[in-house]
């Protein structure tokens, strides 16, 4: 059990948090890990708060419950910070990664005294610069890989290149932008 990492994603319907959790599961699977990737299904509508989960382990995973004490939390949309208890159960030895441009004082005020590490990244800017559109999930995926150290940057980049080739087989023009978003995100995720 010590070898298992548990991750909880908070996003809004339509932002790709579920897809990001599945991509993360894929990437970890490709490096030989045992994985789970599952969303918590509720009323599915654009903009509604959604939660998704990952378990990543070196041994088979048998637990089949939601995750209540995650090692890491990823917040894809910072407007959730005031309405969802994003640090609930989050281990202090772990970290929270937030897609935001808000300052440290604001984040401290909304994170209810969370004592673990807080990382931020401007996934909007990264996505718009690289893709011309706002898809926060790809930069956030890179950020969690970097912070959790599930795999090396090189392994991750190599794997994503492969999966984008497969995923975007019918629109290869977006592969380069997505790779650029990932490369930038790996560099720009910062601890505050």
């Amino acid at each position, binding site marked *: 059990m010590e070898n298992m990492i548990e991750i909880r994603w908070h996003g809004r319907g339509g932002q790709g948090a579920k897809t990001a959790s599945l991509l993360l599961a894929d990437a970890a699977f490709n490096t030989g890990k045992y994985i*789970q990737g*599952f969303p918590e*299904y509720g009323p599915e509508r654009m903009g509604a708060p959604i939660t998704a989960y990952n378990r990543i382990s070196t041994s*088979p*995973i*048998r*637990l*089949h*419950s939601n995750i209540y004490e995650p090692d890491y939390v990823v917040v894809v949309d910072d407007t959730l910070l005031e309405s969802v208890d994003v640090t609930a159960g989050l281990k202090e030895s772990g970290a929270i990664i937030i897609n935001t441009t808000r300052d440290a004082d604001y984040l401290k005020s909304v994170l209810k005294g969370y004592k673990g590490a807080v990382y931020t990244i401007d996934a909007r800017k990264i996505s718009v610069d690289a893709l011309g559109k706002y898809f926060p999930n790809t930069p956030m995926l890179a950020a969690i890989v970097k912070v959790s150290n599930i795999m090396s940057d090189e392994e991750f980049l190599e794997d994503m290149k492969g999966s984008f080739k497969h995923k975007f087989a019918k629109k290869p023009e977006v592969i380069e932008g997505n790779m650029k978003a990932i490369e930038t995100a790996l560099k720009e995720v910062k601890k505050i």
Partner: protein
Amino acid sequence: MGIRERLSGNEASAIAMKQINPDVVAAFPITPSTEIPQYFSTFVSNGDVDTEFVAVESEHSAMSACIGAEAAGGRAMTATSANGLSLMWEMIYVASSLRLPIVMSLVNRAVSGPLNIHNDHSDAMGIRDSGWIMLFSENNQEAYDNLIMAHRIAEHKDVRLPLAVCQDGFITSHSIENIELIEDEKVKEFVGTYKPEHYLLNRKEPIAIGPLDLQSYLFEHKYQQAEAMRAAKKVIADVSADFEKLTGRKYSFFEEYRLDDAEIAIVCMNSTAGTTKVVVDELREQGVKAGLLKVRVFRPFPAEEIAKALSHVKAVAVLDKSDSLNAAGGALFEDVTSGMYVNNVHVPTVNYVYGIGGRDTTAKDIHGVYSDLQEIVKSGKADNPYRYFGLRK
């Protein structure tokens, strides 16, 4: 051996169906099983299978089309959940009484009402007395493996009964997990071709299927169904043994997890068994002799074998993910306890109804059950055998 993959339970079930390549698949979409016919229809469009895919207008029609296809001499499959199964109800009994070995993937979900799309076992429990063989699956791997074994069991000449493979809606149907797939050609060889003895499209033997059956013979035909269900036990054991030779994965009527020297035991089905194994390991580290009996074959019910496997423990908790609303206890509890009673096994046994309508079942919940069992062993008393956990206070 095998192919390392990561798939959801629904994807795994659809891929099993692709490898089986049945003659007919007839289905109507319903959450959480929708993805199975959805993926399968892609296989049909891509020419990966030569199945006749019938996009019917209701589940009643889905089961009717499967009945027609099987009666004609074909191999038919479908997938459904909850209210979809409810709408099939009339035809569910027709399928089993006509002895048609249809295979269904049943992705378990709460039957309305009130309306709920999430997991419990109320849909499966509704057909427990309908004459279908029912196999339960802890995870995507077991859902896949059970489907690969299904036709061999259902179509066996001593059985000829329809079969449902159950898995937990969303919890395993929509969770991506590691899985080991079997190579296409090995599945093809294992499943074999269907050679029905009697079928409508056989011009050399004109027969009628499904005529009126009144006082003179219906009883005997029902007795034959019961005989077939009893005979299914040996066939399930034989097919599972062959499957183990193929894959190395061992399947019995039930899985005994650290049960042989256990003092307290939980009996449950589907995904909860995985969570329970984690708790058993944690308790064992603390010196608590906890064990698990995970029921795989729910119909036919291995009453004698279960009673024997539980005979040495000091207290048992049976977990039901469906409330029978009978003021006496859940369906699995009743089967387990009556099996114990008639086989002279008298161990204090309690029932917990849990996880209704998708209420999450946590390791903490399972720890609570084992701790209640320890209390029962200590006090020697099991007051109120009909209990709940996970219910809001």
